[in-house]
């Protein structure tokens, strides 16, 4: 498969860090090789024809031109290759993504809520139960409106912007949004889904490399869309436990930094401070150092 992978690397795709990601990369690779073959084949033909049948070289055109049915074969093979890609790869892969969610205790379950312009992560805490949410209770300090009277909500973790998950464990994310449509996209994990208000969309992946990854909002969601960044940290199991512990201690006191509060009805004035670099900020001096998967991180 290494030779196949060449083309994705050649096109600049960053390394994959999830279990299913290589399958997605394979589809991309196959598709790109197929496209490249078609492109190169036709281009060669094209250039040849343009030169060979230039007016100066071929002053009198042939009314009939090509009489063989070669193009039919060519078109048929295109159909065949596309069918193989479709039936052999794409459909089963998607079915696996959306029908075979991991079950039981081994999966980490997180609720992710998008809002202009940040992500809030809601984890059930040690009891494995999500607390009830109620939009009437939403305040700056309780961005998800978790019901304080609900016992299962007492130990919940609510984290803004940065999500930690353990490596080599499936992560199930249930996505929703408070306001407009966002898209929770983790390029390195080869996974993404829309966060749509009024619905809950599940998605899952299994990170296989520790490191820090960027979460992109992949759907235009307003003026701060470009800065709606999240962070996914894939920890070793030990680090993960430590993080959980640290967060649990903070829980209730400081569960989330304040969201920007604007008077109701007023148009948004800007992205949440701190999430967006000011325009013209110096370019990242050493890009890739902070976020891309740590080379040693296995």
């Amino acid at each position, binding site marked *: 498969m290494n030779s196949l992978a060449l083309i994705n690397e050649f096109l600049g795709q960053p390394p994959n860090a999830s279990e299913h990601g290589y399958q997605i990369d394979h589809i991309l690779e196959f598709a790109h090789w197929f496209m490249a073959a078609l492109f190169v084949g036709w281009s060669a033909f094209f250039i040849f024809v343009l030169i060979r049948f230039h007016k100066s070289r071929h002053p009198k055109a042939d009314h009939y031109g090509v009489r063989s049915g070669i193009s039919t074969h060519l078109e048929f093979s295109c159909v065949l290759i596309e069918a193989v890609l479709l039936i052999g790869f794409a459909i089963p892969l998607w079915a696996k993504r959306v029908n075979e969610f991991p079950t039981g205790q081994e999966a980490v379950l997180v609720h992710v809520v998008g809002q202009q312009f940040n992500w809030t992560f809601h984890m059930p805490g040690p009891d494995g139960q999500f607390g009830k949410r109620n939009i009437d209770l939403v305040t700056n300090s309780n961005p998800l409106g978790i019901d304080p009277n609900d016992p299962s909500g007492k130990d919940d973790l609510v984290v803004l912007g940065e999500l930690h998950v353990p490596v080599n464990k499936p992560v*199930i994310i249930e996505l929703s949004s408070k306001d407009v449509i966002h898209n929770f996209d983790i390029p390195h994990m080869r996974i993404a889904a829309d966060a749509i208000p009024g619905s809950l*969309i*599940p998605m899952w992946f299994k990170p296989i490399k520790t490191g820090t990854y960027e979460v992109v909002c992949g759907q235009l969601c307003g003026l701060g869309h470009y800065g709606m960044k999240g962070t996914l940290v894939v920890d070793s199991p030990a680090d993960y436990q430590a993080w959980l512990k640290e967060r649990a201690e903070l829980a209730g006191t400081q569960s989330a930094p304040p969201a920007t509060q604007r008077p109701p009805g007023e148009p948004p004035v800007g992205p949440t401070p701190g999430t967006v670099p000011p325009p013209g900020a110096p370019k990242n001096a050493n890009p890739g150092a902070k976020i891309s998967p740590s080379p040693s991180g296995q």
Partner: protein
Amino acid sequence: MNNPPDIAQDPAEHEEYAHGVQQHVSRYLMVGGLLLFFTLLTVALSYVDFGGFFSWLFHIHISQEGSRKLNIAVAIAVAAFKASLVALIFMHLAAEKRLIYRVLIFTGLFVLVLFWLTYLAWYDPITR
């Protein structure tokens, strides 16, 4: 109903044609009566509770007082019947040229697509 190509010019032919039109008039009146009758019928039928044994078809929640899901089917059927009367007789679709049929067949198809796939897309969300 289409004009013969030269109807405007030839009075004799027109006479014949007008006679044909005259014969249609009673049909139009009859259809009008039928439509009024079916309007009353559909109102009357809405008082009857046809129950919900259609639930197996709509194994989904259609917001509906009680479980009168069959009433939806009945009402739509009556409406479709009335609509086809209007289309066939008043709009002369019963005897129209092939070309018009073609256009309408495609349109009908695409409307169905619009309905069916919208339904399908609603029907098949990712769930866990």
